[in-house]
Every structure is written in structure tokens, then in C-alpha cells.
């Protein structure tokens, strides 16, 4: 199915303003597309000015919904309070972070969290593959990762290095995950991390690195391992923030309900990982 379940309030009209994270955008777009079809009189608009840019507008009361790839920060909360913007936070999906190497890389079978930390921590001594494990080649390692202001970067550093935004700086950064894919593909000694969906689309040309978590188990990111939480620690939740004032508007309310009810299916459709059913239920209850 293409996800167009009955959208309920077909009589709704008005407009719904959404803005924020580029990571969350594909999901919201999918929802908006379907909702719009069912409610032609509602004008849903979705912008992509980044989580930070979205929150800026959201806390000023300019938006109905803000897409976010992280939770709201204290300073943003303060602004929201002072502008009398009250909101609800609804998690809507997971984004797995996949570690990949070049297809021609024959030596890497898995990496432990400790090894990843050793590679990525500030002042890291790792210059060649050999510096990670002595039996790996003495070829220089080329690192690829997302730009420093993305949610992925923040989450990865927190999970691996132990503190958000702590990272060695001398890796190839790019804002665009497709560009990272190209980078890893083009470099035999590369190692990179980026959103799971980008790996999935390019699975044939990349080699996925399983992660050995604390208790000796090795996991690769898949829909299942991310969803059930076993792909730890590299999956992060995505959110939408809904203004409570806006929720009073019937069109917004029905949109949000529609969003949460259809999130599972539509999330999969755009290659993100859905939450568990009960998590969606929890979200839905915040709206009602």
C-alpha cells in the first residue's frame, strides 16, 4: 500500500506551517503528501531550514510544527516560554548511523566501540589502519563524516567518544550524505559514517561494518536491530514538535494524528526505521 489511509477530517481547511530538520523532512513530506491528498483544503507547507533554524521560528510562534533531529535545548525552551509557546514533543522514527568502508577493503570485519572511539576521539593517534589493529595494513586511513552541525555528528560523538561534539577535526566533512557516499566509494582506505538510509540505497557499492557492543555481541544496522534497540548505540530518535496553540486548530490536530497513525508505514517507505507501536501510542496520547 502507498500509505493513504483514511485521513479522517476531510472537511478541514486552513494552513499548517512546518519547518526544521532536513533529516526529518522526507518523513514529514510523505505524511504531508498523503494528508494533502485527503484534505485538499488544507495547505500544508514544509520548509528545511535545519533543526536550529526550525526551532528559532518555532519558539517565536511562527510555526505549527517543527521537525527536529535532536531534542530542544534549554535556551530554546527559555525562549519558547518567554514567547508563551507551549509545545508537545513527539518522537516519530529512528535514524540509524551506519559505519561503512570501501568495497575493496578486505581486512575490516567489525569494529568495537572502543576502536571507534580510538579512531574518532580528539587528538587521535590513528593515522593508518595498522594503528587500530596491528595485523591491518599500514595504509593511511581516510575518514569521512558529516558536517559538524548536523544531528548525526552530535549523536555519533556523544555515543562513541562520550561527549557530544568531541571529535578529531581532521576528517573529510560533508554536509551532504550523498557526497560522503561518493567519498567512501572513491577511496580504498576510507572509513565513514552517515545515515542508514544512504547505506541502504548504496549497499552494493559499500561495505557495512558491524559494531561489537559492550557484551561481545556484534550487530549490523538493519530495520530490526535499530527498531528493537539492539543496534546500540548508533540509532537516534527523530521528533516533531507541535505547538499547543496550533493543536487547538482542527486541521493541525488532525494532521498530527494522521502523522502518528501513519508514521510506521510512511517511515519505512522513505527508508527510516519506525518506532515500536507502543511508542506511537504514547505519542498519540499526547495529542488527544
Amino acid at each position, binding site marked *: 500500500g502507498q500509505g493513504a489511509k483514511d485521513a479522517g477530517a476531510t472537511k478541514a481547511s486552513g494552513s499548517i506551517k512546518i519547518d526544521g530538520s532536513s533529516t526529518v523532512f522526507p518523513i514529514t513530506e510523505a505524511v504531508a503528501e498523503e494528508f494533502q491528498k485527503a484534505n485538499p483544503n488544507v495547505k500544508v507547507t514544509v520548509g528545511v531550514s*535545519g533543526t*536550529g*533554524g526550525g526551532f528559532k521560528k518555532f519558539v517565536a510562534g511562527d510555526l505549527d510544527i517543527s521537525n527536529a533531529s535532536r531534542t530542544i535545548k534549554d535556551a530554546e525552551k527559555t525562549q519558547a516560554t518567554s514567547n508563551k509557546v507551549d509545545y508537545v514533543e513527539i518522537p516519530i522514527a529512528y535514524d540509524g548511523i551506519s559505519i561503512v568502508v570501501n568495497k575493496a577493503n578486505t581486512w575490516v570485519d567489525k569494529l568495537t566501540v572502543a576502536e571507534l572511539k580510538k579512531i574518532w576521539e*580528539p587528538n587521535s593517534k590513528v593515522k593508518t589502519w595498522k594503528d587500530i589493529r596491528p595485523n591491518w595494513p599500514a595504509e593511511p586511513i581516510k575518514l569521512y563524516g558529516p*558536517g559538524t*552541525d548536523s544531528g548525526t555528528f552530535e549523536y555519533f560523538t556523544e555515543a562513541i567518544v562520550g561527549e557530544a*561534539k568531541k571529535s578529531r577535526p581532521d576528517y573529510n566533512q560533508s554536509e551532504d550524505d550523498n557526497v560522503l557516499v*561518493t567519498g567512501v566509494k572513491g577511496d580504498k582506505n576510507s572509513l565513514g559514517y552517515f545515515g542508514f538510509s544512504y547505506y541502504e540505497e548504496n549497499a552494493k557499492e559499500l561495505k557495512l561494518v558491524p559494531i561489537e557492543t559492550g557484551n561481545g555481541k556484534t550487530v549490523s544496522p538493519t530495520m530490526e536491530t535499530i527498531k528493537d534497540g539492539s543496534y546500540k548505540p548508533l540509532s537516534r530518535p527523530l521528533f516533531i514538535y507541535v505547538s499547543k496553540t496550533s493543536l487547538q486548530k482542527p486541521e493541525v490536530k488532525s494532521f498530527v494524528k494522521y502523522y502518528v497513525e501513519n508514521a510506521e508505514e510512511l517511515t519505512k517507505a522513505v527508508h527510516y526505521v519506525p518506532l515500536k507501536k507502543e511508542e506511537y501510542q504514547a505519542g498519540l496520547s499526547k495529542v488527544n
Partner: protein
Amino acid sequence: MNEAVLKNARNRSTQNQSQKKTSGIVQKKRMNREDFVVKSILFLCAMVSILTTIGIVAVLLVETLSFFKDVSLLAFLTDTKWTPLFKPEHFGILALLSGSVLITLGASLVALPLGLMTAIYLSEYADDRVRRVIKPILEVLAGIPTIVYGYFALTFVTPLLRVISPDMGVFNALSASIVVGIMILPMVASLSEDAMVSVPKSLRNGAYSLGATRLEVARKVVVPAAFSGIISSFVLAISRAIGETMIVTIAAGATPKLTLNPLESVQTMTAYIVQVSLGDIQHGSIEYKTIFAVGMTLFILTFLINLIAQWLKRRFKEEY
């Protein structure tokens, strides 16, 4: 013919006599409202750019000052690392500055000579019909979305360059600057060509009649006479190169690094500004304020470039 002239003259005389009573040759200035209105309107137009500058400088200045409350100017100017979004934080503008210099310089090395040569070809060598076709075609290059250029650099130019120099990075300043150069090429070519075409033909004829070759006419007569326009085109093009983000972000990566090696990945000041303003960063935080400090630096940089250009123009201008 005489009759016609006479008749005409007679007509005029009667007309003149009737005119003379009402209006002498020397008339009091009527309240010249038209010129006043026009001048005022044009002045307002000019004020738009002034106000824009004031707006931009104000925005930059306020936030920059508040940025320097937290970060010392000395560290800003001497630190060699730029990691405001990292822990540990460093605010060494040099790392971004070198990226901007590298890209701008590279792009200029591509666009200025090629653009000027194209302009000379079009204005001095090409047939008028050829010119009328080629010029708009080249101008298409200015309208291609930069994201297209970015991917073209990454997926076409870089692999090509890597054939020559296999161990250059996938992200490198060279590929980005070549493509930025191509993007600004029409700016140089078109505007310079216009300036050259405006040089009166009689000047060219003067030189040709002395036995000058086309090249000599172009170099010694046309280019000097069109100098002001050429410099303006250069400045606009360089400015555009400095301001470019997308191509650089895609093809050169986003790695602030103090290096002048074009084979490495870099980040420019503008790319950084875009990255942060469209990212996750919470607006109003110190990290966010960095973009204004960077913007201010950029503003000062372009200001210096413009001063040099003005000086060049005044120094070498030839008026006809």
C-alpha cells in the same frame, strides 16, 4: 529647393514672432520639478544599497562584538584551528581564510585569463553573428544551479584529476576552484566584452592603420581603453567566487584546515556560514555567533579587494 527653404523660413519667422511675445530666449528657470523628482528618486535608489550595507554591517557588527566578548581577538587571528562546533573549541579564522583564499585564487586563475581571452575573442576576432550566438550560450553557465556544478566537480572533474594525480583526496580544493572558475567565467567574459565593444571603432582603425596585428590592437588599445570595465568584471567575478558555497561544500568537503595545498579538502568562510545557518545549531548560541564574526572578516576582505580594484582603475584608467 529654395522655395521650400524660404517657405520654411517664413513659417518659422511668423512662429518666432508669436513666440517672442510669450517666451524670450532667456527664460526664467521654471521650477524644475522634473529634474528634482528624478534626482530624488535616483538618490533613493542609491540609498537602497547604502541601507543594505548599513543593515548588513549592523547585523554583523552587533553579533561580532558579542562574539568577541567570549573569544579573544588574538586567538581568532592566530589560532590555526577552526572547530567552534567541536569540543575542544578553537576559533582560528586562518583555517577558513586559507580555504577561501585557495578557492578564490584557484577560481580566479581559471576565470580571469579564460574570461578575458574569451572576451577578446568575441569582441576582436569573432564575426558578429558568432558573437551573438556564443555570448548568450556562455551566459548559461552563470545560471546553472551551483548544486549541479558541485556534483559535476565531484563526479566528473575530480575523477578526471585523480587520473593525473591519483593520491589526491576525493574532496579537494582544486576541483572545486576549477568549477567555481567556470561558473564565474561568463561574468568576466560578458562584462569585459561589453566594455571592449564600447571602445570606439576609430581607435581600432587608428592602430590597424599603423600595421598593428589584431593581438596588438586588443592588447595595446582595446584592453587599456576598456580597463575600468574589465576590472569591474573581475571584481564582480571574484566576489561571486568568494561568496560561493554549494560547489565548495560538495566538491571540497567541509573541513576547515590551514593549508594552501589545493589537493586537500578545505572549507571556506562562506560555506561555513551557510553550514551553520542552515544546520542544527541553536540560534543565538556562541557557535551561531561565529558566523557573524566570519561574515565580518569576509566583509573586510572584500573591502580590501575593492580598494585595490579602485586604485588599479584610477591608476590605469584611459578616458576616451
